[in-house]
């Protein structure tokens, strides 16, 4: 698939080639992983805990060894290179700032072990601190800093020795929502300005969507889909990705026919809808149909002529400020949600109301059951 290729031309910067990992010799945590990361790319590994994403990151960093397969960095196999010789910067989940050292000592540490002279160290430390807007904090100890400040220092420490590749293991997990969103943009900007390659691990899908060039969705030790954020959100390859990324309505049904790239699906209560067949191939197959809440329309004038409509009953209306969130009963599913923008012409639906809803066939994806 074309979206599997890295965003820019410089291919094969980091390559996972049929990598497997097992801790106990009985189960595979990572199953047959193939991944090709381009230079300068921001790639996020997204997945629920236990999906193998952190293990992959640790194998790349050198803290875990692959049970099978090869990891290449810049064309060089790195399986037998110890972590300190890989020249990979890393930001850890709880920052791992050395508590007995000051900020300046923390930042100077990677330069010291690389035998930089004192004046050069100080200059680089200052520059790195300026980069994260923390100049002047040289003499503080990590314990004297707030979570966000520690995060910046951790970032600066991973960048101060100018690695080409930086790994980040849920770096924003410990911050509150507002700060997290702010830091997302800062990291994104640093990535753009420095031209570094970033491999980012998170279980927060919003973070993955807003920051990445491409996202690899992990589940059960495999990459379920590797795609740019928009593709991932709008065209999920399978029902796991559809459920995991963003909010999603699902309806169960059976494929009646597939014609001209459109599948006719009979829902379990007998209604018929059109859907885009993604991984259903023949009539008679069970399918899970997935529609994003904001792609559902209930005003007749907004529906296109070709669209199939379905009966729905309003169960609950929730006012959320910028949007309205309405819960409906559709084809026996009580958890069907639609989202509408809070615009002047928008009507507030009331519980008990009977409405017709519809969508474009390409927004409705027939996935594996």
């Amino acid at each position, binding site marked *: 698939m074309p979206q599997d290729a890295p965003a820019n031309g410089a291919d094969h910067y980091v390559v996972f080639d049929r990598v497997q990992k097992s801790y106990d010799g009985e189960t595979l945590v990572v199953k047959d992983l193939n991944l090709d990361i381009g230079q300068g790319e921001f790639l996020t590994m997204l997945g629920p805990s236990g999906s193998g994403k952190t293990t992959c990151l640790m194998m790349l*960093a*050198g*803290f875990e060894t692959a049970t099978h397969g090869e990891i290449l960095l810049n064309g060089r196999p790195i399986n037998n290179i*110890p*972590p*300190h*010789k*890989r*020249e*990979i*910067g*890393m930001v*850890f*989940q*709880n920052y*791992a700032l*050395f*508590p*007995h050292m000051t900020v300046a000592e923390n930042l100077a*540490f*990677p330069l010291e*072990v*690389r035998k930089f002279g004192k004046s050069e160290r100080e200059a680089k430390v200052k520059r790195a601190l300026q980069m994260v807007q923390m100049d002047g904090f040289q003499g503080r100890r990590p314990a004297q800093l707030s979570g966000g400040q520690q995060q910046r220092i951790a970032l600066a*420490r*991973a960048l101060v*020795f100018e690695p080409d590749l930086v*790994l980040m293991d849920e770096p924003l997990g410990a911050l509150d929502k507002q700060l997290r969103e702010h830091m997302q943009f800062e990291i994104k900007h640093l990535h753009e300005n420095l031209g570094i390659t970033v491999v980012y691990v998170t279980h927060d899908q919003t973070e993955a969507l807003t920051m990445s060039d491409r996202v690899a969705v992990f589940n059960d030790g495999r990459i379920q889909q590797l795609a740019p954020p928009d593709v991932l959100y709008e065209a999920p390859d399978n029902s796991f990705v559809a459920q995991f990324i963003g909010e999603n309505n699902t309806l169960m049904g059976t494929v009646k026919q597939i014609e001209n790239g459109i599948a006719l699906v009979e829902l379990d209560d007998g209604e018929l809808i059109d859907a885009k067949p993604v991984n259903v191939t023949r009539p008679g197959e069970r399918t899970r149909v997935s529609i994003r809440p904001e792609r559902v329309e209930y005003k007749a004038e907004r529906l296109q002529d070709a669209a199939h409509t379905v009966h729905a009953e309003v169960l609950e209306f929730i006012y959320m400020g910028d949007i309205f969130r309405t819960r409906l009963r559709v084809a026996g599913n009580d958890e069907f949600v639609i989202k509408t923008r809070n615009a002047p012409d928008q009507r507030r639906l009331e519980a008990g109301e009977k409405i017709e809803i519809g969508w474009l066939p390409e927004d409705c994806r027939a996935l594996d059951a």
Partner: protein
Amino acid sequence: MTDAAIDGPVLSADGRPLKQSLRRSLRRQQWRAILLIAPLFVFVLVSFLMPIGSMLFRSVENDIVPDTLPLTVAALQDWDYASGEPPGEPVYAAMAADLQAAFEEKTHTQVGRRLNYETPGVSSIFRKSGRPVSRWDLAEDGPFRDRFIDIDADWGDPEVWRTIKSYGGRYTTGYYLAAIDGELTPEGPRLKEPDQRVNQKLLWRTLWLSAFITFCTFALGYPVAWLMANIRERTANLLLILVLLPFWTSLLVRTSSWKILLQEQGVINDFAVWIGLVADDNRFQMINNQFGVVVAMTHILLPFMILPLYSVMKTISPTYVRAARSLGATSWTSFWRVYFPQSVPGIGAGAILVFILAVGYFITPELVGGADGTFISNRIYYQFSVSGNWGLAAALGTMMLAVVLVLFWVYDKIVGVDNMKLG
């Protein structure tokens, strides 16, 4: 704040000053806290602090001489040792009166023994003189000088009188002088000959061996604690039980087993002879010397080093070392620059614990120390129970306490007591 400045103290709802109300509401909690610690506090006060205080007081107390020989002490005021002559008749008369009274009370031997600590031989002349002097008629039988010298020629020795004069006060520094191996000579206080400075030698040995034992427990315990902190919980718990196992047997049993292992006809020597390492008539001397003390005490005190180390190391997240490695440090640099400094509070706690326990150790040096492995505590015990010189024992004890306090202060300056973590 500004309100209070303008309107006076802040008031609570019922019009009372807020501070007063707060104090009232906290009083119950304070009382409960006091009641909770009261039993232990009283127990410690009565059974520990007061006896120790009175014991330490004995290191300067000297009531027995002025109480038993009041007239003699007063009469000796006018006598000058520098004259080289024994004192005049009034002093002998006073001594006769004092001794008669003391003989009644049966205290003349005690004062003799007290003075004997300072000048050997005094004890016997007091013991010898008690009965004869008691038969004298104080009014008729004078002059007493020659009669005293008849009983024992030493009564004519100015040295004896100098001792009584020097130690006639209610308080004395004599025990401390003795504790640091000093003696009072006619020319003033000075240290004894180097080969007679027993207490100093024992003090240095105690400190030095304790420091060495502390180092040994550190060298042996650090890797074990590290391992325990870095393996699976279940295995770590098993190891912890093995570390604590020695605590479940009595100290005496453990020391005795080292005796069995290390002695000349012991297990280790037998084995060494059996494999031909040493000749049967040339066995290792591993017990009743410093080697034996170091081995046995290191073993006994090891848990006190391992436990604080372990509890501190458990809190050091493995990501620190990983972070160091990812920043380009070798495994040794990561350990030395990142892991080790964070484990220092555990080393500090373990070291001070082991050192202070070692300094005061008694049983093990007594049993396996022999002549050159005994500690100052064995000396204190000897003065206390064999020689009966409680004053000297107390002075040695006080001195030991002072040395430990000084070391603790130095330690605080270097490592910092706040930087010490027991768990």
